[in-house]
């Protein structure tokens, strides 16, 4: 029994491993090799000179990187604060309403993110849903809320909302009600219950949610382009420009590699600390 389990396990893992090897590992390797090629070449048969990394340091590209990481951090913190009460209610307070919210949130995931962001442009622009109606009804007017830094964070919060909410719900529902009850009986205040019981016991959900949001937001492109206009140029934008208008693949690759290294080490660190079997509900 044990032996056949091992063989079938390996066999079953094979197809997806092949897909990931050929279209995830191999492309990343190519990006890595391109990043050490001389500037503006399109093949891999040159003598490596690492000049693209020099460009990254000298020409201020690190500023875009810092913007991306800062925006992602702000969005992640805000998301945690916004999602916690709702996730708590979904795990512990609501009954049928949890299902309603779950379905409502999942449906938005299936709408292309650029359509949703475009919807915010229509909502917030001058002459948009909010400003237009405000002016028509009260005569007050404002310049629209687009094309600044806070609106980019708003866009990130909006798009990555489900990626924080669902892991948090999962995490909070892992907190046994007995433990909370016992703490309360022993005289813990609500704040103490939150700090000493809820937070540590739902840590796997918090880690997964925050990590997902931070990593995805750090590599996000559409939010800053559609909502932010040219207020800030994020790193993913620089990468795209280097590949398209700049026609400088090694530079684009070097920028990607820096981003990948930061995000990748965070993701690997986070994922390795989390026990997937317990999060995904092994009941045995």
């Amino acid at each position, binding site marked *: 029994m044990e032996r056949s389990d091992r063989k079938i396990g390996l066999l079953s893992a094979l197809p*997806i491993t092949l897909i990931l090897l050929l279209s995830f590992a191999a492309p990343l390797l190519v990006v890595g090799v391109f990043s050490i090629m001389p500037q503006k070449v399109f093949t891999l048969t040159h003598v490596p000179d690492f000049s693209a990394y020099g460009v990254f340091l000298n020409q201020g590209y690190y500023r875009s990187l810092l913007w991306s990481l800062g925006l992602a951090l702000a969005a992640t913190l805000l998301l945690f604060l916004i999602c916690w009460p709702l996730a708590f209610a979904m795990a512990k307070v609501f009954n049928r309403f949890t299902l309603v919210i779950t379905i409502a949130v999942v449906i938005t995931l299936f709408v292309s993110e650029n359509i949703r962001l475009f919807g915010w442009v229509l909502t917030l622009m001058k002459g948009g849903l909010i400003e237009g109606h405000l002016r028509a009804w009260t005569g007050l007017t404002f310049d629209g809320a687009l094309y600044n830094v806070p609106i980019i964070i708003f866009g990130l919060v909006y798009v990555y909302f489900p990626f924080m909410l669902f892991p948090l719900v999962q995490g909070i529902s892992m907190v046994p009600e007995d433990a909370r009850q016992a703490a309360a009986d022993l005289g813990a205040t609500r704040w103490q219950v939150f700090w000493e019981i809820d937070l540590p016991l739902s840590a796997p959900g918090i880690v997964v949610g925050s990590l997902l949001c931070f990593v995805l937001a750090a590599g996000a492109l559409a939010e800053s382009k559609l909502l932010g206009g040219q207020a800030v140029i994020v790193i993913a934008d620089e990468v795209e420009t280097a590949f398209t208008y700049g026609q400088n693949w090694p530079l684009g690759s070097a920028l990607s590699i820096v981003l990948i290294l930061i995000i990748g080490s965070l993701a690997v660190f986070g994922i390795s600390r989390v026990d997937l079997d317990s999060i995904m509900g092994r009941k045995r």
Partner: protein
Amino acid sequence: MLTSRASRIALYVYGVLTIVFLYLPLLSVGFASISKARYLSFPIRRYATQWYGKALESHTVHDLLTTSLTIAGIVTIVSMVVGFFAALAFARYQWRFRSLFQKIILLPIFFPQAVLGLALLMWFNSIGVIPTWKTAVVAHLVWISPIATLVIAIRAYSFDPALEEAARDMGASTWMVMREVTGPLLMPGVVSAGLFAFLLSWGNFPLSLFTTGADSTLPEWLYAKMVSGYSPLVPTVGILSIATSLALLIIAFAIPWLIRTLRERRMQTS
């Protein structure tokens, strides 16, 4: 621990507000799609459905629909099959590299999609493959097949391995166990994974952006129009894309319900 009445009400209000927040931009797109004016400005003075007529007649929109549907269709089928086996390796079997495998599967999900798209573009270029909609299928699979795996794995965690062992003890071969026991037990998970796969591929934009070459998907075309200036067709085509997803979701929920109702009715009459 009981929550007080006041805070319960506050939490319900918070939940409703969240849903409003999530759907407000879609409401704007909906209104914009039925505005008569070529240049949109709220409040809308005259409504018309003319842009829907124009969108449905347009050859560009037809081509976009065909490309998006083809990609999503292939991605769905492949990720259902691949995800089924991967989920078993993920959740069911105890094998040597299982915990490493679990973590590797998650990596593509934790990866910025625009960067992944560019990486794939360079990879295709260096092995001499010209990007078309077919390369976009590959790009979508990198991200969607792990998600399909997770969806099926949730189902695989909850089934009792004793059922498989019983079948094996009765003399069933590995293949028979797979076909008669494991397969049917995981089927609901496989179907929802297929639904997820289709909808995620249908709406995906960052992966398609760099990997479709000369072809274009619906979300890609919308993005190009959004960045280059307003077109009255953008909200209309956006709503059409959302309507397609919704229709599919409704069908997916309606079919099991219909089957159940019919079965119950037959039970009552017999």
